[in-house]
Every structure is written in C-alpha cells, then in structure tokens.
C-alpha cells in the first residue's frame, strides 16, 4: 500500500516536472513573442506612416482625385486594422502568459509540496541564542527609531530655516485676482463676447476738454487694435510699414512700462504684404493671460512676450493671402494661443502652446475672413466659435476637434460671432443675420433675417436681445429669440467698433469717436453720449468702472 502511494507520488512529481517544463517553455515563447511585438510596434507608427502622409500631401495638391482618396482610405483602414490587431495580440498574449505562469506555479507548488521533507531539530537556537536575538533586536530597533526621529527633526528644522524652499505659501504675497473684473484679456473682453463685468462705467466724458479723462497718451505707432488689460497693465500694438511694436502701459498713469519691437522674425516673406488703409499695419488685437502677451501682425508675424516685455518666442505664419490684410485678433484658452488665420488659400486655425510656441493642433479653413474667434461656455462644454465667408463653425478649443458647422453666412466676413443663453449669432453685410440654437440634437437654425446688417462691428448678444451696430450708422436691437426688430436708431456716423454691454447699458462708439450709451431694453432709451474728440475704430476695454479707448491717434483712460 505504501509502495503504491510512493509510486503515485513519484508519478505525480514526474508529471508535474513535465508540465512545469512545458509551461515554462510556453511562457517563454509567449514572452519572446510579446517582446518582438513590443519592439515592432515601438519602431513602426502606421498612423503616421510616410506613405500615408505623402498621399495626404498629394491629395492637397489634387483635391478631387477620387482614386487617390480611395488609396488613402484603404491605407488608413489598414493602419487602423494593424492598430486593433496589435491590441488584440497584446491582450491575448497577456492572458496566455498568465495562464502559462499559473500552470507553472501550480506545477512547482505540487513538486515542492510532494518533495517536502520534515525539518530536523538541528541548528535550532538555544537559550543563549534567544537572548542574543533579543539583545540584537533591541539595539536595531532603538537605532532605527533614533534614526527616524533624528531624520524627522532634521527635516523639520530645515523646513523652518529655509522657508523659501520648504514653506508652501505666503498668503500676503498671493496675487488676488478677480478674473472677471480685473482683466480684459483680448478683443471684446473675456471670451471675446462683448460683455463687461464692471458694475458701471462713466456716462459722460470729453476727450478735448479733459472731462473724466484720467490720462491721454499718443502711442508711438498707430494701430486699429483695441486695448487689452491684465490688472495694472494695458497692452496694445502699433506699426507702420517699417516697424511693428508692442506697448505695455501702466493703467493708472498711462506711462509706457515697456515697448518691444517685433522684427527679424524667422520665416517672414521678403515680399511686401498688401494692406488696405482701413486695416492698417496693426489691426489685430493682442491677447494676454497675465504671464504672457501675444501679438500678431498682417505680415504673419506672431510673437509672444513675457509680461515684463521679454520676448519668449516669435514665428511667421506665412505671407497671408488676404486682399485687405489679415486682421483677426488672438485669443488665449488655458495654455493655448489660438490663431484664426483665414486666407484665400490654405487658411488654417492654429493653437500654440503659449509657453513654448509649439504648435499643439491645427485645422484647415476653407474660406477667408477678417473676424476673430470667440471662446464661450455653452453650458456643458467650452466652444471656440469662428465665422468665415461661408459658415459658423465650432471647435473644441483643447483639441481642435470640429464640434459643429453650419453654412449660413456669405460675403466678406468681418464681424465675429456672439453667444448668449444657448444661442450663437452671426451676421454680415450683404448677407444675413442668423441665430443658431444649440440643442441636444445639435445646432439648429432658429431664425434668419437680411435686414440691418453689420459690416465690421461684431454683434452683442444677451439673453433677450441682439444688438447690431451697422457701418452705415444704424444701431439696432432685435429680439434674440425671434429676430423681430424691437428698435433701430440712426446716427450720423457708422460703426466699426463693436458694442459692449456694461450692466444694462450698451456702449457703442461710432467712427467719429462718439459713444452712444443706450439702455439694453426693448425700447430705445438713450442714457448718454460722450465724445473722444477724434475718430475711433477700436473697441473699448471696460473694467473696474473705467473705459480704455483708442482713438485714431490717442489712447484714453476714462473714469470718474
């Protein structure tokens, strides 16, 4: 009986050894295959293969080539198949390996259990050894405890001696910033949506007599770009045919804190850029996030400065194919500097990492425009909304993913979009005003009208009203939900400057530099009018109960 049992045991051990060898070999083979797979996938990148890229570039030259499109699709499908096959291989390989190693473990466990011998009492510790172990344990434990204690005390001491490195915070030095009320980070304010969060703003001033003018300075070079502000610093740019400059002003005193020239930008074309007089050499409004300020010029030069004036990076985006001159303004979303570079050909929407200037994403644009992007929170996501000569398009600002597009516009597109209460508005002269409702089923055209259209000034949208400032002198208020005109008022001069909402008042500055302050209501109610004393085509920055305006020649700070 014992012999039979012993034979059985030996047989099991033999089988287990065999199984262990097979399992080990199997695991080894799977392991090698996984390594090979890993090395292969590490070196090959089918999604960015040269072949695919080459074909894509070729397609850009011959966009209608159907055969080429089919070839790209086939190659792309192949790349995706390779990707998913690879995923399957990795997963299956991992499971096979686990099964193999599991069997190996069981076999080894069986072998060790069956070959286990009972221990012998030889070599066991006697009383002296036990005492030595206790003594040693006491010493080691004391040493370890002392080490921990000394280390903690040392670290604590260092942390209090060297506060700069170890102290986490000094509250008195924290910058207290209220983003909404202390910044005007780009064209038409926060998100580019023409809403000021100031409680109020002056109702009267006079640029000639100095009434309510805090300061008035003449920038070294002209420009039609509007002021942008971050706390105590105001930024504008100026340029002529020879120089391009960025200026930083002290908002309290109107003194220039720094000015930097944008020159010798790598990649800039030697050919002169054609510009219209209405555009000028510096029409693009800057964008800032406090740490950086970025500027773009119609030459395609894009530059990013630190808030102390030091150039961080600069690049040229290529000579613009633009018969009036590139005039879109910049916008910053999180750490991305977004550039709408709509051209006759090869237009693009670009996002750069503002720290490094590296391109993060780009999207092709199919039509020209002179409008600027807006970036708004449409309740459940942030949307970057652009207009051009054919459409209104929304992108995910983080990735550049197109969220929706509606071909509802036409003409030479100057005005930017506006957003309020789940509705996006677009408008253009010789075309139409459109209202798009963002519904759970996607964007829907809610209403459209071709009466009272803006040429340059962007619309202003509120929950109830849509305000349009026309270049032929009309200021119009429509019902935002229906498009029905509520009132219209004709002034002597037209509007290039975009209207801004401050509390319940609309501030609309005409080309003569007269600002018409009108109640944002269903009936026309003029609250006040004030003049700069010179022409103005720029959009004011209104914050902290002050207005910063740029006239044809001067820059003004207006406040009571």
């Amino acid at each position, binding site marked *: 009986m014992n012999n039979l049992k012993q034979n059985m045991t030996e047989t099991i051990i033999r089988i287990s050894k065999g199984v262990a060898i097979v399992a*080990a070999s199997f*695991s*080894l083979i799977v*392991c090698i295959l*996984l*390594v090979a*797979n890993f090395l292969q*996938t*590490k070196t090959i*990148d*089918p*999604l960015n293969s040269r072949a695919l890229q080459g074909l894509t570039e070729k397609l850009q030259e011959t966009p209608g080539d159907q055969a080429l499109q089919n070839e790209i699709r086939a190659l792309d499908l192949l790349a995706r198949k390779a*990707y998913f096959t*690879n995923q399957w291989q990795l997963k299956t*390989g*991992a*499971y096979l*390996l686990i099964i193999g*190693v599991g069997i*190996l*473990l069981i076999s*080894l466990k069986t072998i060790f259990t069956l070959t286990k011998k009972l*221990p012998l*009492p030889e070599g066991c*510790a*006697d*009383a002296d050894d036990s*005492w030595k*172990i206790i003594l040693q*344990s*006491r010493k*080691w*434990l*004391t040493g*370890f*405890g002392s080490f*921990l*204690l000394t280390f*903690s*005390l040392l670290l*604590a*001491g260092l*942390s*209090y001696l060297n506060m700069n490195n*170890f102290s*986490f*915070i*000094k*509250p008195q030095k*924290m*910058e*207290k*910033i209220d*983003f*909404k009320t202390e910044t005007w980070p780009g064209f038409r304010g926060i998100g580019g949506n023409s809403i000021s969060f100031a409680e109020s703003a002056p109702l009267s001033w006079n640029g000639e007599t100095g009434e309510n003018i805090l300061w008035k300075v003449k920038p070294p070079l002209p420009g039609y770009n509007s002021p942008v502000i971050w706390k105590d610093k105001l930024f504008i740019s100026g340029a002529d045919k020879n120089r391009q400059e960025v200026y930083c002003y002290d908002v309290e005193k109107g003194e220039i804190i720094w000015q930097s020239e944008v020159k010798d930008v790598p990649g800039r074309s030697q050919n002169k850029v054609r510009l219209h007089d209405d555009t000028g050499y510096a029409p693009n409004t800057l964008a800032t*996030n406090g*740490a950086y300020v970025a500027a773009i010029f119609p030459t395609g030069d894009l530059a990013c400065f630190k808030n102390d004036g030091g150039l961080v990076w600069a690049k040229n985006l290529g000579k613009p194919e633009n018969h009036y001159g590139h005039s879109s303004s910049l916008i910053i979303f*999180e750490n991305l500097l977004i550039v709408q570079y709509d051209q006759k050909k090869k237009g693009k929407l670009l996002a750069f990492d503002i*720290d490094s200037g590296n391109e993060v994403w780009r999207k092709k644009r199919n039509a020209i425009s002179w409008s600027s992007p807006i970036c708004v929170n449409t309740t459940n996501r942030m949307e970057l909304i652009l207009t051009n000569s054919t459409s209104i398009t929304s992108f995910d600002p983080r990735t550049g*993913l197109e969220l929706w597009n509606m071909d509802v516009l036409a003409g030479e597109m100057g005005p930017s979009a506006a957003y309020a209460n789940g509705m996006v508005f677009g408008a253009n002269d010789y075309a139409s005003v459109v209202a798009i409702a963002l519904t759970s089923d996607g964007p829907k055209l809610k209403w459209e009208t071709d009466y009272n259209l803006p040429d340059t000034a962007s619309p202003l949208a509120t929950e109830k009203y849509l305000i349009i400032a026309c270049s032929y002198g009309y200021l119009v208020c429509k019902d935002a939900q229906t498009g029905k005109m509520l009132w219209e008022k004709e002034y002597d001069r037209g509007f290039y400057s975009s209207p801004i909402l401050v509390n319940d008042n609309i501030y609309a500055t005409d080309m003569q530099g007269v600002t018409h302050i009108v109640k944002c209501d269903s009936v026309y109610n003029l609250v006040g009018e004030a003049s700069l004393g010179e022409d103005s085509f720029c959009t004011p920055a209104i914050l902290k109960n002050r207005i910063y305006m740029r006239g044809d020649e001067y820059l003004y700070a207006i406040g009571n």
Partner: protein
Amino acid sequence: MRRKGVKYLYLFLLITLLMGNLFAQDRFPKPEFETDYYQPQTTTPLPDSQLFNYLDVFLLVIGMSLAAYFSLKSRSRRGIFIISLLSVLYFGFFRKGCVCSVGSLQNFALALGNSGYVLPVLVGAVFILPLLFSLFFARSFCSSVCPLGAIQDLLVLKPLKLPSALSKVLSFLPYLYLGFAVLLAFTNSGFIICRYDPFINIFRLSGDFNKIIYTGAFLILCVLIARPYCRFLCPYGVLLGWMSGLSSRHVTITPTECIQCKLCENSCPFDAIEKPSPDKVPETRTAGTKRVGILLLLIPLIIFVSGFALSRLDNILARANPTVRLAEQIRLEDEGVVKETTLESRTFRSQEKTGEQLANESQNIVAQFRIGGWILGAFLGLTFSLKLFGLSVRRKREDYEPNPQHCFSCGRCWESCPVDRAPSAKVKKLGLK
C-alpha cells in the same frame, strides 16, 4: 546547486508574469478621425451594479468563515490553499482588487475627517467585517481571503529567512504606513495605500512603466521573502493584529500537547512562531528591572519628541494635499519663481475663487497636518516604546506558539508537528485533508 537553479526558475517565472503586464499597455495613440467621422462625446459609464458589491460582502463573510473553520477547527492547509486561489481569482482578477479591506481603512479615515463624505455601507462592511472576524477567529482573513495576502502566499515556495532582529525592526514599518495613510486620508490628501498597492497592476493587467517595475520588484521580493507586504507594510494588518491579539481562539501548532520536539521551530516562513522562553538569561533581575524602569520613564518623552518632530513637518507633509500644492504653485508663479504654469493653476485662474480663499484653505489644511502630526508622532512614539518594552520584559512561555498578533493562520506549521492528528470524518469526506 539545485537550490540556485530553483531561484533562477522563480526569477524567470516572475519576469514572464511581468512581461504580460508590461506589454498590455496601449502603444498606439488613439486613432484620429479627421474627416467625416464625428467623434462621439465622452460619456461616463454607469456605475457597477450594486449586486456585485453585495456579492463581495457575502463572499467575504463566506470566505472568512471557511478560512476560520479550516484554520481553527479542521486544520486543513489544503482548504486554506483553495480559498487563497479563489480569492485571487475573484477578489483579485475578477473584481480588480477593489474595494479591498486594506484600502477601505482610508475611506473610514476620510469619512471621519470630512463631513461631506459619507462612508458607503458596503465599504464600511468590507472594513469592519475582517476586524470582527479577527476579534473572534484570529487572522483568518489574512490566511487566504485577502487577495493581496493570497497572491503573496501563492508565491511562497522556498523563501529566505530574515534575521529575527531585522524582522523586528521592519515590523515597525506597517505602523508608519498606517499612520501616514490615515493622516493623508483624514485630510483628504489622497489614498496612498491604493496608489502604492503593488498588486493592483497584476489584478488589472495594466499600469504605466514605473508601476510595472514597482510591481515586478515587489513580486521578486515575494519570492525571496515570504509575504513581505503583509509583514512589513500592510497597514490594515496592524489593526487585524490588534484584534487578533484580543481573540481567544488562535491557530495552534499542535492539536494536543507540545512535546518540545523543536521540529516546527523553522517551519513558519513568516517568522511568527514564538519559542519557549529560556530558563536562564545572562542578566540579573535587578539590571533588567532597572532597564525597564528607565524605559517606562522615557516613554512620555519619546511620545512628546516624536509628536513634536512630526508636527513640525506640517509644511512638508501638507504638500501631499492637492489644494496646498496648487496654492504653492500659484504663489511661485506669481513671484516669478517658476515660469511654467500647470493645468491646475490655469484652471484655478479661470475660476472665480480668489487667491486669498485658496491661501486660507491651504492654511487650514496645514493646521490639520500640524495637529495630525502631533497625533501621528505620539502614536508612533508609543508604538516604538511598546515594541521596545515587549523586547525588554521576560514572558514565561513553555511551548512553541504562534504569535497571536503576527500569525497569518496559514497552517504551514501543522505539517511539522509530529503529534498525531486525526482529521474529522467530514473533512476526510470532503478530501480537504
């Protein structure tokens, strides 16, 4: 020679096991669809069915009951082994190692420190039940039901024996880990037990490169040293040890009377068998009493100094908290010390909360760490003192006995005991002996 070969075999075993995880990562970026494809909106998957949570608790109770039966009543090592295997498969691979009792102590601490967080009943059950079982049936949970312990137990083939003194020193680490884990969870600073769980990558067949290296190193350690996590790290093991120490039922090496054969002396790979105390020691009673007296006098001082030292680390420890880190980042950015902003700081600046509010929040958190540092330091000082005290007093022990706190109730020592054991008829029938 043969032993060396076996070690290499273990090593191969572990490396191959690791490879599976290493290559189970996504090597390709997510495909980009740039043409007509509309990328669907990211949706949040529905939470797991509650059914599985109830099943977890049910199986936990069943597992612990069986483990207690096998370790205390039937003395079936095979039964314990089968539960270990099932636990690794169900709690480990199927349930992906979460929620586990070890990590649940952080939920408990978080619930204590944050009125806004309500401890889910099932998580509370997962935390409390093993402690209750340990109070009545010693560490039956550790023997086979805990997936972390079970996977280590399955890797115990022929481990090295650590010097006893080193084991004593290392056994202090779980108290450190417990203290810091509770402090960080209490202050809502993170769950370090989960973050540094060495086995989760195996159970989930995923993980980044660093974590896989970490897991691999730990698995190799598990082959060289038996259950290193349970013995020298597991913070929940500290609580279980306390409960088990209070339990009246423990695993016994011999079913009847110890014959002092010494055969079991080296049978425990976890160094949990206490030897009979020597009749004579080379120290006079007076010297021993004096030493213990000095230690007793020093205990309050040790507690105070430890508390003081850790309370002074408030600024450093508080950095584990994301709010404090953000406040520091904002300060450094504002002072121009760091040039690069972070996603968190940019997000903060785009919100309405002011820097002052953030600073105040941070100050409150640091204050919590200061008080927590006092408590943690005092706890560690007391633990250290008691450990030293335990090594300083003589206890009369006549037989070889499993340490009531450290024994995992695995039953490995039974095989070494030559005292005849008669398995019950029921166990024989089930073939579990």
